[in-house]
């Protein structure tokens, strides 16, 4: 490996590269690295729907300042004047000349369209607000459901483990009692299958007290044995 190197010069590429990196680090102070920029670009844009950030009074506040963001347009607007003194006179004159204006074009559709647009602007604000509220609510619901799902998942896991433990206890008991009478070659699987078939749960039920229906339903010698153990009523 030592054969593949060129020494004998005062140039050291690694030192130059270290120097370049140091310089870049100094320049980058306070700036985002490329990885950070990529991370920001890939970030999910859900901050706007964060329930903590969302202002539910936003629409009301916005609508109360209607004049600051929307225009008001009535059929009278086109005749109005900004002059404080002679404004009334100018407005009357314009209204008087309205029939002449109508000879050139019909201003009514324009007035109607602009009035409607002004109303629409208000509706859009309200609709967007409602949609945002609804999405925030849905987002909260989704978060709740996710957390419930997680809880349920944990419970299901727990129940599965519990069931397995009970099964082990049950099959272990029935298997041993049955194996006493059966041949020694019977496999543990067979024992487990037999246990699930009916006899396997009996010891567990018997332990919890009382005579079970199972003992009455099951026929054969196991039934009579249980009947004998549980009391005389079982045999009727």
């Amino acid at each position, binding site marked *: 490996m030592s054969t*593949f190197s060129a020494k004998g010069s005062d140039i050291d*590429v690694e030192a*130059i590269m270290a120097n*370049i990196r140091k310089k870049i680090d100094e320049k980058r102070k306070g700036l985002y690295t*490329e990885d950070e920029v990529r991370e920001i670009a890939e970030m999910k844009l859900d901050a706007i729907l964060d329930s903590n950030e969302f202002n539910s009074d936003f629409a009301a506040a916005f609508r109360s300042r209607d004049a600051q963001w929307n225009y008001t347009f009535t059929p009278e607007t086109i005749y109005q004047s900004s002059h404080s003194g002679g404004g009334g006179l100018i407005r009357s004159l314009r209204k008087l000349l309205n029939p002449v204006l109508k000879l050139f074009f019909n201003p009514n559709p324009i007035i109607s369209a602009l009035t409607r647009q002004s109303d629409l602007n208000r509706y859009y604000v309200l609709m967007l607000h409602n949609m945002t509220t609804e999405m925030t609510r849905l987002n909260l619901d989704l978060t709740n459901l996710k957390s419930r799902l997680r809880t349920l998942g944990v419970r299901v896991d727990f129940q599965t483990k519990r069931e397995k433990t009970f099964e082990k206890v049950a099959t272990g008991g029935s298997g041993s009692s049955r194996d006493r009478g059966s041949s020694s070659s019977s496999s543990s699987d067979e024992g487990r299958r037999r246990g699930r078939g009916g006899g396997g749960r009996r010891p567990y039920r018997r332990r919890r007290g009382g005579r079970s229906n199972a003992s009455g339903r099951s026929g054969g010698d196991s039934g009579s044995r249980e009947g004998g153990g549980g009391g005389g009523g079982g045999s009727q």
Partner: protein
Amino acid sequence: MIPAHGKVAAVAAEARSSRTPGGSSAVAAVTRRASGKNNRSARNRTERLRLAFVVQRYGEDVNGGAEYHCRLVAEHLARSHQVEVVTSCAKDYITWRNEHTPGTHDVNGVRVRRFKVRKPRDPDRFGRLSQKVFLGRHGEDDELAWLDEQGPFSPALLRHLRRRQDDYDYVIFFSYRYYHSFYGVQAVAPKAILVPTAEKDDVIRLEVFKTLFNLPRAIVYNSIEEREMIWRASGNRGVKGDVVGVGSEVPASIDARRFRDGHAIHGPYMVYIGRVDPNKGCRTLFNYYRRFREETGSRLKLVLIGGKQMKVPEEPGIYYAGFLSEADKWSALASAELLVMPSELESLSMVTNEAWAVGKPVLANGKCDVLRGQCRRSNAGLYFDDYYEFKEALVRLESDEKLRKALGENGERYYRDHYRWEVVEGKYNRIFASLRDEDRHRPPAPKRGLLARIAGY
């Protein structure tokens, strides 16, 4: 007939039994002993061997790094050995369509034996298999099916190797990832020398190749990084091997004005030589260069030489010169300020060696282990991992003539020590000598019967 993969282990054991203990250190010892001696006299002393080069495609009209590498080595070794090239009739590595006529030909004084590809590659099937093998859960059968589809699927070529293996002293396989190498090395393991030309991609991690790297008598690596990657992937440290690479032949005289005059290029420029292809990092290069020019106001141009697989932006400072003659290429290199090499996947960059041969510094992609390692070891180039490093390194190279000169001188020295053809040929010959030495000291293998020789078993 192709041996089942299950036999690979047995073949490996047979191949291993023919090695002396010590593995690569034995070659290193021979290399050390011979390193001080004159290479020319070493060539004169070298025994004339019968060598077969097995490669997926071959010819002057074939583009491809490994194929070009093989042709150069074959042509140079043909001066001191009896060389025959065994290859397919394909020219195109995507379809493996038979385009050359089968049989023996002469290419630049080297005898070439071509075999038909029985089944061209089905791109759909290959794509599906690639997806399964590289992205999904899969088994050895899937990998072998992928390898068959990878091609060039030429059982005739393998049959020839088995039947006529006694005609060759050593069989040198190029590119481990293809059908011919995988089954060919298994077929003639006691005579096989592998030149893997491996890159840092997912193929190296396939299970079937782990065994392959343990089969040949010796492995000729392109770089230290490639060797370490293969060691890591296959644990084949016991197999003999040396880092050799490929030589570059610098013209006796280079007319530095020829390119500038012919293409009306004025002012300083950096040059990129190779396929203009997004896979070679050219898109990144264009983006970085555009930003560099905007931010620094530099007058440094970017000249591109080679085939085009993508649109070259028509922007100030970028000049695409297209395919050039060798004389023009060397002229462009000699009059450039530096060579830029943005590729992330390189087994060995020949053009980097060529830039160093004419004393030019290199600005390479640091994400490519091989290029980064070469720049560090040679002290002849800077490298970049992102735009900021590209910009700073380029600013420094552009503004500091003394630095360029010093890096270039280091590069020249590095080329002289490692990549002159005399050095490369000497390394090959030392590997052959080491294997011959081993062969002399081991009991001769039982002669194959007539039927085995005819049937190719």
